[in-house]
C-alpha cells in the first residue's frame, strides 16, 4: 500500500505540512492568475506613458483623476464578479445607477438630509437586485433575459421619476452628500486620493476576504462550478442566487451615489452602457463568464486597466472614438488568454 508521505493522517498535522499539500507553489499560482498579467500590462502601460508624457501623464492630478474615474466602474465590477462567479450576468447595473441617481436627486431636492438620500438610493439598488434575483432563482428565467428586462425597466422608471429633468438643486443635505463622492484624502501637499478610490479599495479588500474566508463566498463559486452538486451537498442555491443580484444592485447603487456626489447633479442617463464596462472589467480581471472563477482584485485591476487605456489614448491625441476599439480588443484578448489557461489546466 503505497502512501503519500506528505498526506500523513495523524491528528497533529501542522500548518506547514497542510500548506505543503498544495500542488502549486504560490509562485505558480501567481503566474497562473490572469489578474497578475493584467497588473503587469498596466504597469508597462504606465511606464511607457510616463516616458512619453512625463508632463501630463505622470502627474498627481492625472493619477487622482484616473483613479477616481475607474472607482465607479470598479465598485460596480466588484458586484458583477459575484454574479459572474455563480455563472450569471447582470446587465441592469447601468440602469440601476440611473434609477439611484434620480432617487437620490429627488430626495435631496425635496430638502431631506444626506442620509435619507443615501438610504433611498441604496434601497433602489436593493429592490432592483432583489427583483432580478427572485425571478432568476425562483421563476427560473435566464439571468441574461431577466436583467435585460430590468435594464429597460429601471431606466424607464428613472426617466419617469425625474420628469426628464436634471436634478442639481440639492437642499441642506447637498454638501455632505457631495462630500462622499467629491471629497479627497490629502496625503501630502499636492497628492490626494479621492474618496471613491478609498471606498473601492476598502470594498475590494472586503470582498476578497468574503471570497477567501466565508462559506458564502465559497457557495458562490460552488454554484458557478457545478450548480447541481452545490444543490445536492446542501448549499442554499436559490437563496445565494438572490443574494448575488442584491449585492450587484447595491454595488451599482453605491457607485451611483458617489458619482452623483462627485458631479453634483443627478441625471437619469447616468450609467448608460456602464454595464458593459463593469462586465469588461470583471472579465479582463479573470472572471469566467461560465462561472466558478472570479476575484475581487481582478475587478479592481480590470477597471484600472480600462481607464488607463482611455486616459493614455486621450493623452496621445488618439480620436476618442477609438477607445471602444482598444477596450474591446483587450476584452477579447483577455478571454482568449483565459481560454488558453483553461485548456492547459484540463
Amino acid at each position, binding site marked *: 500500500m503505497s*502512501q503519500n508521505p506528505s*498526506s500523513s493522517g495523524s491528528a497533529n498535522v501542522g500548518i506547514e505540512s497542510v500548506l505543503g*499539500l498544495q*500542488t502549486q507553489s504560490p509562485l505558480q499560482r501567481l503566474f497562473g492568475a490572469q489578474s497578475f498579467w493584467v497588473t503587469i500590462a498596466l504597469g508597462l502601460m504606465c511606464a511607457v506613458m510616463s516616458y512619453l508624457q512625463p508632463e501630463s501623464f505622470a502627474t498627481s492630478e492625472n493619477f487622482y483623476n484616473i483613479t477616481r474615474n475607474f472607482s465607479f466602474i470598479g465598485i460596480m465590477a466588484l458586484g458583477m464578479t459575484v454574479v459572474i462567479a455563480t455563472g450569471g450576468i447582470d446587465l441592469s447595473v447601468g440602469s440601476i445607477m440611473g434609477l439611484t441617481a434620480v432617487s437620490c436627486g429627488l430626495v435631496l431636492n425635496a430638502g431631506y438630509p444626506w442620509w435619507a438620500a443615501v438610504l433611498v438610493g441604496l434601497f433602489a439598488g436593493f429592490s432592483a437586485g432583489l427583483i432580478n434575483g427572485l425571478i432568476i432563482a425562483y421563476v427560473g428565467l435566464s439571468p441574461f433575459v431577466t436583467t435585460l428586462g430590468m435594464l429597460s425597466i429601471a431606466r424607464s422608471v428613472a426617466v419617469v421619476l425625474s420628469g426628464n429633468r436634471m436634478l442639481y438643486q440639492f437642499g441642506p443635505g447637498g454638501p455632505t452628500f457631495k462630500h462622499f463622492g467629491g471629497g479627497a484624502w490629502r496625503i501630502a501637499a499636492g497628492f490626494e486620493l479621492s474618496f471613491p478610490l478609498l471606498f473601492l479599495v476598502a470594498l475590494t479588500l472586503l470582498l476578497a476576504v468574503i471570497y477567501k474566508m466565508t*462559506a458564502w463566498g465559497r457557495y458562490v463559486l460552488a454554484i458557478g462550478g457545478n450548480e447541481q*452538486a452545490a*444543490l445536492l*451537498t446542501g448549499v442554499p442555491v436559490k437563496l445565494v442566487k438572490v443574494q448575488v443580484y442584491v449585492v450587484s444592485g447595491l454595488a451599482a447603487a453605491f457607485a451611483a451615489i458617489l458619482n452623483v456626489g462627485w458631479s453634483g447633479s443627478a441625471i437619469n442617463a447616468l450609467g448608460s452602457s456602464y454595464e458593459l464596462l463593469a462586465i469588461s472589467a470583471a472579465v479582463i480581471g479573470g472572471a469566467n463568464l461560465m462561472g466558478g472563477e472570479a476575484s475581487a482584485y481582478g475587478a479592481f485591476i480590470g477597471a484600472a486597466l480600462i481607464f488607463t487605456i482611455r486616459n493614455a489614448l486621450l493623452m496621445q491625441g488618439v480620436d476618442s472614438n477609438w477607445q471602444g476599439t482598444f477596450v474591446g480588443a483587450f476584452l477579447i484578448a483577455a478571454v482568449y488568454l483565459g481560454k488558453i489557461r483553461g485548456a492547459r489546466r484540463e
Partner: protein
Amino acid sequence: MAVLELRSVSKYFGAIHALTEVDLKLEEGEVLGLMGDNGAGKSTLVRVIAGNYPPTHGEVLLGGEPVHFSKPAESRAKGIEVVYQDLALCNNLSAAANVFLGREIKRGFGPFRWLDHVAMARRAGELFTELKSETRPRDLVRQMSGGQRQAVAIARTRLSRARMVLMDEPTAAISVRQVAEVLDLIKRLRDSGMSILLISHRMPDVFAVCDRVAVLRRGTKVADKDIKQSSPEEVTGLITGAISAA
C-alpha cells in the same frame, strides 16, 4: 424495525416509469446490494430516498416514520449520506472544499464566522488516508484522477455519524486496489452498525460485501433475497430477464 423502508414507491418522469411500485427494506447493520441493467431505475431510487425529487406514488419511511424530504439537505440531517453516481463535485474547488461543501468548519464569534481552512484540510487529509487514497486536500478536483474524485465523494459521507449510506456505483472508476479499500470500508461501516445500500454493476463486489441482494428490471423489483441463497448466475439471469423473478 427497518431503518429504511419504501412502500410501493413509483416514480414517473412523464411517460417514463422509472420505478413501479417498489417495496424495499434496509435493516440496521445490513449491506443491501441493488443491481440492475442500465436505466433500470437504481439511481432514481437513490434520488427519491435522498429527497432529490418526491415519489409519484408511495411512501418512504425512516425507522417506521413516513418522511417527505423536499431537498437533499433534509435527508442528510436525518442521517442519510449519499455517494452520487456522477459524484456531485465542483471542479473549481479543492478536495477539502468539496468534502465540506455545505457544512464547512467555521471559527469566530457571533455573526462573524470565517472558514477554518486548516482544520478542514486536516480532517479531509485524515479521511483520505483512511480510504488509502493519495488525494491531497488542497488539490483542485479539476486536476484529479477518477479514483481521487471518487475518494472525495466517499470522504464526504464520513463527516458525520450517518445512519445509512447510499452508494451509487462507488467502485465504477477506481483501481483494483482502491476497490478493495472501498469494500473494506463498507464492511467496517456495517460492523459499526451502519446500514448501506450498494449499487454496483460488479458482481464480485456485491457478493463480497452484501448480506442481501435486490434486482431491479425496468423499474420493477424482480428479486430480493439473502445473498447466500443466490448466485452470480442467478442474479445475471434476473438482470437480463433470462430468469423472470426470484
